[in-house]
């Protein structure tokens, strides 16, 4: 029976209507759970149990006091000033260098040395904006938001398509474990080498977009 898929329909409808996602998720859980024959109270209990078991997902927020403390002392202003002194630093080239560094460090297993809260907000986004501002002094708020969104995207893409080259990353271990359970024995190295072509393709595709990225949309 297809009733448990009701939750997916609820999720899609909620996102399409741009509702606040939190109640939509509860609705989706209830729809799928009830569709699978569970009592509503059992669904709430399952949700509560999983929420408690997944608390570690929210732990990284405790980095915010460090970021806030440094921002208070002018970290973002310093990051921006750094770029103003570099004549060659355009927004695109700056993000390209970050993409390369993010992919390389992730490939060495160092995924946690950067991230949206750690590096994008306090460092990369102000730098990208400052570089754009030097080229185009008449940037408007919409331009600035597009630049910041591109900085966030560059961090995600760099990490996603770098980390799988590292042997001990969770996804490689998951693949190895799944194949093993099906009787196929494969060494992690044999899996992670196959992440390299896609990593190169990601660098070329996103890198080309960055070099062609125009921080100031024609008006």
């Amino acid at each position, binding site marked *: 029976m297809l009733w448990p898929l009701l939750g997916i329909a609820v999720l899609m409808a909620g996102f399409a209507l741009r509702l606040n996602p939190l109640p939509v998720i509860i609705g989706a859980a209830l729809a799928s759970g009830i569709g699978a024959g569970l009592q509503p109270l059992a669904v709430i*209990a*399952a949700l509560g149990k999983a929420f408690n078991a997944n608390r570690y997902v929210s732990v990284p*927020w405790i980095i*915010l006091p460090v*970021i806030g403390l440094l921002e208070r002392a002018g970290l973002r202003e310093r990051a921006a000033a750094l770029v103003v002194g570099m004549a060659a630093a355009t927004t695109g080239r700056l993000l390209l260098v970050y993409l390369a560094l993010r992919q390389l460090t992730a490939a060495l297993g160092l995924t946690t040395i950067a991230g*949206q809260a750690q590096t994008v907000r*306090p460092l990369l986004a102000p730098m990208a904006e400052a570089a754009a501002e030097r080229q185009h002094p008449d940037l408007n708020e919409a331009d600035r938001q597009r630049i910041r969104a591109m900085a966030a995207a560059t961090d*995600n893409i760099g990490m996603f398509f770098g980390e799988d080259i590292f042997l001990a990353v969770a*996804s490689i271990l998951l693949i190895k474990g799944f194949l093993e359970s099906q009787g196929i024995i*494969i060494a992690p190295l044999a899996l992670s080498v196959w992440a390299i072509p896609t990593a190169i393709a990601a660098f070329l595709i996103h890198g080309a977009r960055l070099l062609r990225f125009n921080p100031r949309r024609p008006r």
Partner: protein
Amino acid sequence: MIGLPFIYTVAGAVFAAWAVLTVADRAQPRRLASAAFWALLALSFLAGDRLGDIGNGVLVLALVAIGGFGLVGRANPATTSADDRIASAARRGNRLLLPALIVPLVALLGTLAAPRLGFIDPKQVTLVCLVAGVLLAVAVTSLWLRPPLLAPLQEGRRLVSQIGWAIILPQLLASLGAVFAQAGVGQIVGSVTGGLIPDGARFIAVLVFTLGMAGFTMVMGNAFAAFPVMMAAVGLPVLVQGYGGNPAIIAAVGMLAGFCGTLLTPMAANYNIVPAALLELDDRNGVIKAQVATALPLLAFNTLMIWGWAF
């Protein structure tokens, strides 16, 4: 052994402090509801194991009620002015960047040293190092810059309130994944997808596999949830056993096809929705829109790669 209890106690204490500071802040919009939101998170971290499943479920409903109705207000505690910041940045120069390196440095050294230290839970090394790095960075920065005593917590509260309700989104989505698994959503999606493949059309089979990985990842917000489903439904029975494909290439590249889906979905809240809040974008989907033109060609590349190299 330092492990999850230590991590959750520190995180719970930080959330509790945010709750107290929110109540005490007369200028805070929707003060009591906002404080209740942070207090409930503190309760979850400090006492979640003692609440029972139903108790935790009620806690989730309360968090969703406060967050879903927009009752978590933005805090604006006293801070330095724009001019202060520019002056401080000019005076302190690039040394300001150094404390930002403490957290990643502790993470790196901790990960290398933990197996030899013995008192860190080997399964939680990353989080323990994160917590230790944060505590060290706050201590060092406070000693150097001499901000007001509460400044780390107040500045953290400013940032966390900017993210607002979205802060519980990643954890809640992970919980939804657990409910979906219990309801058997994966098996159903797998069997429906498997039925889409006509006999003898290898390229179509590869396409169903990669699009299925990306699509189901978009639904679940996580390629890890999609991988076992799509491998069991299409990857193994059709591509590996049916067409004799190389399982290493199919599995590794299939996972990366899933990652392309992660770039395209609001369900991957950590990567796509939270940064939009953190970077003060008006469009909640702004980051996703910036990723589309990279994700789609890359998905095509992954499809062609399996088709061309795995057989």
